[in-house]
């Protein structure tokens, strides 16, 4: 078999603890986004659209959903006889048995996977960003510069800069300095978590890093500084499109809202760069006679009889008559019963919001996004205050509240 020019390694083991309830049972890359997608669809589709057909997906935290979702990779055309998508989980070996101890360690433990395809270049991607990018253009820049490592960067505001890995570059975009989440950023070029390495160099530094007991085994903290320190050729690759880190509830909500509008910030409808995802056999969505839908994204299988404004609805959501959904993200299979109001909230999949419930508060006055966990059934007429996170424990309060016969009282 011919060798592959480039193999992609997709880091999908992250817990995403700042997504709280959304990632209690699934890994962050499996979190639902934009109606019919999961976060991992974006890097996977980018790979396929860039002609990369060999992808290793490194999983560790709650991998079941992700394994099932990716399956044999068929929805992304990654069911290949040679290459395709492979799930790489931590494993036992004769001399060692370890969890992945960091992003670099995860790749290190799977160097044999990379070697099998004998590529010249390795892309390291993370599974928690929303963006459409042509990786091939980046690979071309890497080759043209004769680089050992190329890091994709995006311009951010100076206020935001301290949340990212920040790069300083010279006029040729060669990287002169790298700061991980700096207090005083020296530049506004943030790393997107998208790397191209020349394979031999990557291998060399991963092996060196593994032998270093003081290392935290992280690309940003250890590998990149080590390569810079040794005088290797590191280049930045500027990306101008839409890119969003969806690591927090607020940013996940914002990214969903970026899909809306006459000219959305992030356009899913662009036929030149299709985002591929696993599709389920859902009928078309139905809009009832009294329904009002404005500035929203509605997916197949929905039944809309109430009002939906500025919201993103995943497949199979029912909004009954008189119900109002505003400024919210509703994930698959939810039912918003009669006269319930959902405002500025994220409702996880297969949740039932009982009739007359009030979840969240108008965005203008709200103190935060309300969150309801997967699969819960909110009893009728209960009130979820803004910023609340409703999980099983929280539900007990509702039951108690109902027993006290003090319905409609806000649970504080």
């Amino acid at each position, binding site marked *: 078999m011919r060798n592959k020019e480039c193999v992609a390694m997709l880091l999908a083991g992250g817990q995403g603890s700042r997504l709280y309830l959304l990632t209690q049972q699934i890994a962050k890359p499996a979190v639902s986004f*934009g*109606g*019919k997608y999961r976060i991992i669809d974006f890097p996977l589709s980018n790979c396929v659209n860039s002609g990369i057909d060999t992808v290793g997906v490194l999983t560790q935290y709650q991998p079941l959903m992700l394994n099932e979702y990716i399956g044999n990779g*068929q*929805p992304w055309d990654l069911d290949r006889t040679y290459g395709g998508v492979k799930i790489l989980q931590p494993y036992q070996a004769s001399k060692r048995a370890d969890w992945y101890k960091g992003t670099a360690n995860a790749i290190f433990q799977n160097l044999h996977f990379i070697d099998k395809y004998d590529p010249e270049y390795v892309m390291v991607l993370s599974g928690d960003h929303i963006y459409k990018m042509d990786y091939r253009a980046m690979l071309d820049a890497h080759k043209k510069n004769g680089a050992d490592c190329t890091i994709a960067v995006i311009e951010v505001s100076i206020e935001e800069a301290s949340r990212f890995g920040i790069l300083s570059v010279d006029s040729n975009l060669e990287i002169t300095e790298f700061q991980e989440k700096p207090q005083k950023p020296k530049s506004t070029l943030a790393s997107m978590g998208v790397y191209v390495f020349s394979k031999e160099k990557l291998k060399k530094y991963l092996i060196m890093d593994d032998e270093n007991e003081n290392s935290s085994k992280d690309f940003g903290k250890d590998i990149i500084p080590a390569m810079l320190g040794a005088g290797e050729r590191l280049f930045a690759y500027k990306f101008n499109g839409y890119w969003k880190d969806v690591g927090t509830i607020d940013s996940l909500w914002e990214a969903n809202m970026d*899909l*809306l*509008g*006459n000219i*959305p910030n992030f356009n*899913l*409808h662009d036929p030149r760069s*299709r*985002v*591929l*995802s696993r*599709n*389920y*056999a*859902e*009928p*078309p*969505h*139905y*809009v*009832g*006679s*009294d*329904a*009002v*839908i*404005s*500035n*929203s*994204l*509605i*997916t*197949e299988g929905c039944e809309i009889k109430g009002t939906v404004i500025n919201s*993103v*609805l995943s497949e199979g959501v029912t909004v009954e008559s008189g119900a109002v959904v505003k400024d919210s993200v509703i994930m698959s299979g939810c039912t918003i019963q009669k006269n319930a109001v959902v405002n500025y909230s994220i409702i996880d999949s297969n949740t039932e919001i009982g009739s007359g419930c009030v979840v969240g508060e108008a965005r203008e006055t709200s103190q935060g996004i309300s969150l309801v966990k997967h699969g819960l059934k909110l009893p009728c007429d209960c009130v979820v205050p803004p910023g609340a996170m409703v999980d099983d424990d929280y539900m007990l309060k509702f039951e108690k509240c109902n027993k006290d016969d003090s319905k409609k009282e806000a649970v504080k």
Partner: protein
Amino acid sequence: MTVAGVIFSNIHDDNIPELTKMRTMASIPFGCRYRLIDFALSNMVNSEIYNVGVITHYNYQSLMDHIGTGKDWDLARRTGGIRILPPFISAYTGEQKLYVTRLEALKGIVNYLQYLKDDYIVLCDCDIICNIDLSKIIDHHIKTKSNLTIAVKQTYVVGDMAADTQIIESDDEGRITDILSTPLYENGYKDINMNVCVFTRTYLLKILSDAVVHNYSNLTFDILKKNIHKERYHIYRYEGYFTKISSIMDYYDHNMDLLDFNIRNELFNVKNRPIYTKVRNSPPTRYVEGSSVMNSLIADGCIIEGTVENSILFRGVKVNKNAVIKNSILMQDTLCGDRVELNCVITDKNVVIRDGRVLSGHESLPFVIGKNSIV
């Protein structure tokens, strides 16, 4: 006990010339995201029939496009799976014509049927809309020790019904006593042929070789009616939602039927029996501020800026600002420009309606705009 399926993709093409000019009956788009064959294929797969042959005639490129490898119906398989059965014409026997009747079509696939190992064959046409559990018909077939079981639906029959509606008469035990091909006499409830039937494979092969020997060409009159008292033919009476598409009016009406919750529910929301179709990876439909949509069924991938009422929108339809779409069926990738007004219009795929055009048909005669037209 194993079962194989055979689907007739073209047999009723003449009924809807408006939509079958460029395609087969089987690949007529229906219900926002489906094509007619999706019902036949999904019914088979949901009844654990994983070996399906599709008999084609002409113009079947669009059908092959739709089916692809069959993976969207879980029919891309090493054993069984889906097979296209192109019309059989030998290069060495001089002048030969394409098949016309159902029996001639079956004669053309005798080799295929002989090669199968299955005990029973389900035959199904593509002009039917229903979500039916075929395994119940097969069980019934086995229980009654039949050679042939025809699924029927009790329907109120009127004199001017489509000419290819067959009425099946049967005795108290469900044994078929007569088959009428033109319902001319009094109106009333009759069992009509659903164009779904189960044959015992060995029996089917027997009558096919008989048909070859005697040069028979009509299944009903040359074979079934001659043997009706000799052989065991039974009916299976289906109770659920069933309809046939026999004309462009039927096509319009039955698309509009989907706006009824109960019909939609009975077709699409049956537990463990979804209707599968080709995946197109369309993004969710985007509604912008100022859009107004009422009582409509809408697929993914649309962008809606205008007003839509009582309509069926397929994937990738765009309705621009101030456009008003009423009582219409807009197929895949139809573009409606600014201030367009449509009423009772059916647009085929990729139709472009330029800004300001006003078009109207009538509920009794929808206006059909052909594929790729620009208005």
